[in-house]
């Protein structure tokens, strides 16, 4: 079966088109790709995806197409769709890439193209726009339940404030101890902060962005930015690395101008509070903690030191590291909206994280991403190895409240 008149070039940036030609298939990325680690299937590896996509371009718009006519093999295209969606978009391949391909940005762009030609997304991902449209969140949960099940009663949210807090869908519906910890810590710092009402705090757009379904993005971003601006926000913080990533990287272009506020991850804000003395952690405990760098926090926006600073501020703790940490951290399996479609892969990756944490003798596995939190907890269900999983702010909140 063949397809005609499909542009595989339009929509990609110049850099991404150059990147497709830059790949040398050295295959260094295969050593670091978490999907390769758990599946071992080379046909879904980064160089193979690039090779296939380049072939689509050559067969439809290159000199070859000009001479032989534009043709594309539908079976190859379907193989490619599976490969590009099975990826967790963690970007480890890009960090390892010897020619500097920025894969964390390339894969979503290629997924967008698959959506454009009607072959993506895969499985339940296709429901995301409908869910966001109807409920404002990607979990299709009632918006009135967004904050009600976890928000501490004694914490005051101001109508207007320079500091804004965005809880995010995954935190609110799937990692509630985490977002509860966030607001308890913010409350302890004492600076007035504002939040949007639950029905107004809609999806940041990341799940739609990452699955290639970009149609609603502009509208979502404009609604959110205008709402925070109306509340006088000058700095918007979130604990979700994916939210922070899209806010910092893509919100300005989707909004059409620079944002009226700065974007920060909560660990950055808390680190500043600790440094300036606005937050003090007097209690602590003698435990070994191991911190997992979320892909979209470390490779995505370069927040690596701040969470470690916060953890080291807890008296008595010993902070240990995964073999792969910082820019080279290993995906826990929750990335790229693949966790609900390629469930087995995600669980296997989550268990690799648990295995290493247990082997290194850590007492607690510290996370700072709601998707990681949800998936690694799920991976531990019915697994023989056990470790306590705690979010970084959930942990800090324990010591400032006790």
């Amino acid at each position, binding site marked *: 079966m063949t397809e005609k008149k499909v542009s595989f*070039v*339009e*929509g*990609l*940036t*110049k*850099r*991404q*088109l*150059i*990147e497709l*030609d*830059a*790949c*040398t*298939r*050295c*295959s*260094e990325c*295969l050593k670091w790709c978490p999907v390769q680690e758990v599946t071992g299937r*080379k046909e879904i*590896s980064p*160089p*193979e995806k690039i*090779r296939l996509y380049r072939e689509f*371009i050559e067969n439809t*718009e*290159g*000199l*070859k197409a000009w001479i032989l006519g534009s043709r594309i093999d539908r079976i190859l295209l379907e193989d490619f769709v599976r490969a590009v969606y099975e990826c967790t978009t963690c970007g480890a391949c890009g960090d*390892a*890439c*010897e*020619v*500097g*391909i*920025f894969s964390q940005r390339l894969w979503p762009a290629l997924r967008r193209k698959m959506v454009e030609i009607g072959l993506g997304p895969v499985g339940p991902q296709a429901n995301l726009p409908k869910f966001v449209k109807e409920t404002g969140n990607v979990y299709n949960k009632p918006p009135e339940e967004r904050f009600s099940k976890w928000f501490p009663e004694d914490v005051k949210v101001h109508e207007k404030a320079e500091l804004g807090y965005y809880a995010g869908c995954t935190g609110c519906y799937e990692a509630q101890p985490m977002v509860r910890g966030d607001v308890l810590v913010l409350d302890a710092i004492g600076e007035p902060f504002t939040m949007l009402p639950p029905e107004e705090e809609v999806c940041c757009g990341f799940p739609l962005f990452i699955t290639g379904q970009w149609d609603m993005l502009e509208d979502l971003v404009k609604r959110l930015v205008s709402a925070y601006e109306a509340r006088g926000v000058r700095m918007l913080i979130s604990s979700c690395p994916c939210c*922070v990533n899209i806010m*910092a*990287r893509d919100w300005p*272009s989707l909004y059409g101008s620079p944002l009226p506020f*700065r*974007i*920060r*991850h909560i660990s*950055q804000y808390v680190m500043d509070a600790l440094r300036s003395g606005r937050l003090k952690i007097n209690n602590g405990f003698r435990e070994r903690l191991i911190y997992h760098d979320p892909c979209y926090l470390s490779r995505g*926006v*370069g*927040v690596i030191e701040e969470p470690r600073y916060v953890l080291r501020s807890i008296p008595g703790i010993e902070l240990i590291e995964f073999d792969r940490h910082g820019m080279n951290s290993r995906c826990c399996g929750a990335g790229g909206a693949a966790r609900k479609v390629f469930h087995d892969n995600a669980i296997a990756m989550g268990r690799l994280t648990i295995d290493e944490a247990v082997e290194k003798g850590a007492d607690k596995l510290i996370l700072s991403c709601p998707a990681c939190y949800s998936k690694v907890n799920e991976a531990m269900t019915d697994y023989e190895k056990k470790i306590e999983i705690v979010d970084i702010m959930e942990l800090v909140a324990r010591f400032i409240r006790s």
Partner: protein
Amino acid sequence: MPSREVFIYIPPLLRMLFYLASMLSLFIFIIGFYSRVSLWLRGREEPHDLLSRRLSILDLIRMSFFYFFSKDCLLARRVMKRSKPRGIMLIFIYWGLTILFIGTVTVALDHYLGLGILKGFFYLSFSLILDIAGLASFIGTVFFLIRRVFLSREIVSGWDDKPLLLMIAVIILTGFSVEGIRLAITEPPLMDLSFVGALFALIFKHLDVRPFFYSVIWSIHVFFALLFIGFIPFSKQFHMFAAQLTSQDSLYREESLQGLVHD
């Protein structure tokens, strides 16, 4: 005074064929290059992205060319960071082929402009350096070829990966053979300085080769060399231009990463 005659043992008809084939190869290269880079330029613009700004073909050539001579590129730093053996072998190929290219351009200039610089001490040094460059690029090419063949389970290869490496190896081998045959026949003074060519000469001397054989091997060498040049824009080898740009951009990206959520 040591020197060498260009197109020695090559009959006029073969020379003419060589010029025609060279023009064809270069023409295909230019068309392919233009077609591929034009495709890049159709990409969407992103003002904050170094490579996705408003750029012309000349901008891209300039950026690619300058990075070619950067420390990162000359020392294969990104590859070296991941694997020392691969980094060293890449340097062998990169430096080797670059020196051979410069050498060929020098011979052409000397021949067509009648400069007369390729003689005496300069010629001997030139021959020695080019022999070292050829040997280095051959070692590097064979290394990557072996890697692709024996590590095929761990490495992703396209249809063109192994044939391209094999083609480079054949070009270098036939190049040394041509040199060896010439040395075997002419036995110029201080020929041992071209140590790889001299080694080949030892073999060919035993085979009692004639000028006709020289022209045959030379034709094979030229055929593959010109085929390779024309094939560059249509193969993975185009990474020699694209990777210069993305590697450069990645350095910029590492800096800009800090600007996203940091002051």
